[in-house]
């Protein structure tokens, strides 16, 4: 490099040199920031895997928790409970959310539509612990905690996610497709059912998956509604149902290393479930976008 140096140096000096250095330093800093974020994710998942290794085995997901003072045991009750809670939430939130999304994208006047969208965004921003207090006041006070209450609380959290994603994917369906249906003399609702909905179907599946991924890990709304639960598998939603997030929460607050190990293992199960669903949702989303915007 230095062997063919010209008479006068082409190397920047003075002000230019300083600007170049500032440029390099700041661009390097930006790259480092991205690296930090990815590293934190790696650290988090790495710790969970490493710490869960000692406690996770087949018994862990097929057995109930050990009685107090004993070691071993599993989280079968929480797995079943979480499954039922998510199911209740889906049954409530999917139809309401999808219909609300259809309303904002297909029927509402622009002003109404943007108001409803803002309300949905605000609902999405309501802290989940507040949803817990809400359902506690609405359904639990004077009665007792139950799977129904927990499921409804989760449904409220799922609702804006499903409605907004549905609305966004419907907006991707080209207007020309709808117009073609209408121009053939087909009524609006039939056009919608036969033309628009099939094009947006993948997107609605994505919306549902995103909603499930979000509520599967929610702890706060369950604390007040479905946390004081039996240590055995319960399938009756009129009883409080155990769940994986609440189990992790209570185990993490305990001083016992044995329960910490169980918490890590439960966290691994939860993360694998949530990340898998998120990834599947992404794949569906990419496919749905391609299909909706014309293949």
């Amino acid at each position: 490099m230095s062997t063919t140096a010209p008479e006068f140096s082409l190397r920047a000096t003075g002000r230019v040199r300083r600007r170049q250095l500032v440029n390099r330093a700041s661009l390097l800093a930006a790259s480092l920031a991205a690296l930090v974020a990815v590293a934190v994710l790696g650290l988090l998942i790495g710790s969970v895997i490493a710490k869960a290794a000692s406690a996770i085995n087949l018994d862990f997901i097929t057995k109930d928790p050990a009685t107090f003072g004993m070691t071993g045991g599993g989280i079968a009750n929480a797995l079943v409970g979480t499954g039922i809670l998510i199911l209740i939430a889906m049954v409530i939130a999917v139809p309401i959310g999808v219909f609300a999304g259809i309303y904002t994208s297909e029927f509402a006047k622009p002003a109404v539509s943007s108001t409803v969208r803002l309300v949905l965004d605000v609902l999405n921003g309501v802290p989940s612990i507040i949803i817990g207090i809400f359902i506690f006041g609405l359904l639990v006070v004077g009665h007792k905690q139950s799977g129904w209450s927990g499921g409804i609380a989760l449904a409220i959290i799922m609702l804006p996610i499903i409605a907004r994603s549905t609305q966004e994917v419907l907006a991707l369906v080209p207007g020309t497709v709808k117009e073609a249906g209408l121009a053939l003399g087909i009524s609006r609702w039939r056009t919608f059912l036969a033309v628009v909905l099939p094009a947006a179907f993948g997107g609605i599946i994505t919306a549902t998956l995103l909603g499930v991924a979000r509520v599967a890990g929610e702890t706060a709304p369950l604390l007040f509604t479905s946390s004081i639960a039996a240590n055995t598998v319960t399938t009756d939603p009129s009883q409080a149902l155990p769940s994986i997030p609440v189990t992790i929460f209570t185990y993490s607050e305990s001083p016992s290393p044995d329960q910490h190990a169980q918490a890590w293992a439960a966290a691994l199960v939860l993360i694998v479930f949530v990340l898998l669903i998120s990834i599947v949702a992404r794949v569906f989303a990419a496919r749905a976008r391609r299909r909706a915007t014309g293949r």
Partner: protein
Amino acid sequence: MSATARSETDLTSARRSLGDRLGDRGLHGLTMLAAAICVVTVGLIAYKVFDQAGSAISTFGLGFLTSSQWNPVTNQFGAADFIFGTAVTTAGALIIATPLSIAIALYLTELAPRFLRTPIATLVEMLAAIPSVVIGLWGILVMGPFIQDHLGPWLHSAFGWFPLFTGSPAQVGLLSAILVLTIMVIPIISAVTREIFATCPNELKEGALALGATRWEMVRLVMLPYARNGIVGAVILGMGRAVGEAIAVTQVIGGTAGIHASLFGSGDTLASRIASQYQGATSNIQISSIAYLGAILLVIALIANVIARLIVGGVRVGGRRTRPAVPAGAPA
């Protein structure tokens, strides 16, 4: 769209069968009902939270906000300590997360090799998908000991003269809560900022480069001013998230009331106090006071979200990020 709909109705209304008219009305009505349920739910949440807080509001009034008592024995309750905890942890998290998030957004829109952009953006978003209870578990069992043994002592020896870093580092405390919240808001702020950066017109950026600006100068003189409002919106959105996070904060903050300067000390936020009281509330006035904390939290979250959405929404329109247009040659 509404224009085509109207003309369609006008043309065919005379000839349409009963079934089609019912179908149209039915679908319209059904979807409107669903949207109405969503709107009513938000109203009902606000009503029910304030309703439960009613007796605490009438007993303590606005003095609740400035009283730092939380005494279930004498039934005296106040929120000052938790408002303080919320303010400190949220501010701390935003101070760390904002520059990091902007830098990440910058890296993803300007610097990263094209083949790395989507994977890294996905990984950052995955951070948002990790349940808060898992981040809290990690915070208390992995990060806590690290703060106590390494980060804390280092901060103390380097900045011990500064009130924030006095006292002895512990596994739990305000600092842990700040770091946990930082992890949780980075994906939000960086995702929104990235979207805004992506809308920055190329002509502006190329203009700056053509005038001899370095890439950093282009960022500082063109992109940051362009994205300023949107970044403010993104930060407010992150604030809403940090203020409302209950579980992870409960796990790492220590759960003691008190106002002190040191970040090594433990504390409690509005949300974490609510979460930690879920089994412990005995008297009606205590339950009502918990709901009062919730009401304060709800008001903050609502204001933050409305403002943020209005700002970010406006930016999207201004930045021409309306709906993705139909590709011109797309076969229908």
